[in-house]
């Protein structure tokens, strides 16, 4: 569809705004609606829009399929690593109070880290599911 001028120009303007909005939603989880899941989906939607307009081949040059699979597993790994870090400090699994010098600071740090983990996982999963569906039956990708 990249031979259509309106779609091409609008996508080039919109995709950075979408990615920025995804990061905004992620880091404002503490103060308003948002969080890892919504931010991951919005972030992936930017890439999906790019893929729909400019083609799957170019998108996979920008963000290859194996990187999205790495993201999917890496995010869950970050989540579990935070839990194990709490255990290494002597508390229960996923007890964030011991992660900082203060209970409140520990909670802030723990919530930030696991929301980042959830963002990376959801982004990787959504993008890789889209790649699998869109590449089925094509041999030029």
């Amino acid at each position, binding site marked *: *569809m*990249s*031979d259509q001028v309106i779609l091409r120009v609008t996508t080039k303007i919109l995709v950075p705004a979408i990615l920025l909005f995804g990061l905004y*939603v992620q880091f404002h989880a*503490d*103060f*308003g*609606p*948002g*969080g890892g*899941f*919504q931010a991951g*989906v*919005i972030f992936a*939607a930017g890439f*999906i829009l790019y*893929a*729909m*307009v*400019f*083609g*799957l*081949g*170019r998108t996979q040059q920008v963000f*290859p*399929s*194996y990187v999205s*699979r790495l993201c*999917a*597993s890496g*995010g*869950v790994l970050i*989540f*579990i690593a935070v839990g194990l870090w709490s255990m290494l400090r002597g508390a229960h699994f*996923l007890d*964030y109070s011991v992660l900082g010098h203060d209970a409140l600071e520990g*909670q*802030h740090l723990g*919530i930030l880290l*696991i*929301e980042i983990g*959830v963002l990376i*996982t*959801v982004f*990787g*999963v*959504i993008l*890789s*599911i*889209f*790649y*699998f*569906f*869109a*590449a*089925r*039956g*094509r*041999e030029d*990708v």
Partner: protein
Amino acid sequence: MDLIIDFALLALLAVTSLAIVRQTNLFSAVTLLAIFSFLSAALFTVMDAVDVAFTEAAVGAGFSTILLLATLSLVGSKIRTPQVRIVSVTARTPSRRPTFPLIVVLVTGGILVYGTLDMPPFGDPDNPVHRHVADHYLMDSEEEIGIPNVVTSVLASYRGYDTLGEATVVFTAAIGVMVLLSGLRRRDTLGEEAWGEEGLEDLDPGLGAGSSSDTAVSVDGAEGEEADQLRDGDGDEP
């Protein structure tokens, strides 16, 4: 004013769901489902569930629609109407008349409506669901965790284990789709797949020996446009 919007949104939801039942083309049914998801996101906003509305709009109306359209481009969007099949009704083929499902649905709906007569009044702050744990979360979240958004604090800290389970479920879905859809498969008649031919060595589609003599997926009728949109995007490559 809230009540009027609530009333109107619920009525629109009911009408949209009835419209989905009566569709004969899957493409329009998928579009109506996206409208349904958006209306329910608006309903969640009116009921003060802003996080849920955000997630439903992003996931339900956004990604679900993309997935369904991608499936329709691979599968075809014609719904075969029941009255085409009039011969070869075997003993295992169920009846074509829609009255039996309608009766089952009406009976079940009647029982459920009878059950809702016992529910506590809608929106009452003294409901039993607002006792016990929810009070503790709202009142102690400020001292114990210190972030304003209580939904995030409950999701990430008080119920962090459930969120770990959710992330694992999402990851398992990616693995499931990968096992089912990775690699190219040639069009196969039923039952003759050989498991060794599955492109397990090329988890990147297109890299390995994808033995596809016909990559033309069945495109029939009206969904040729979105099939083209998902397939022929790279028209500007030299």
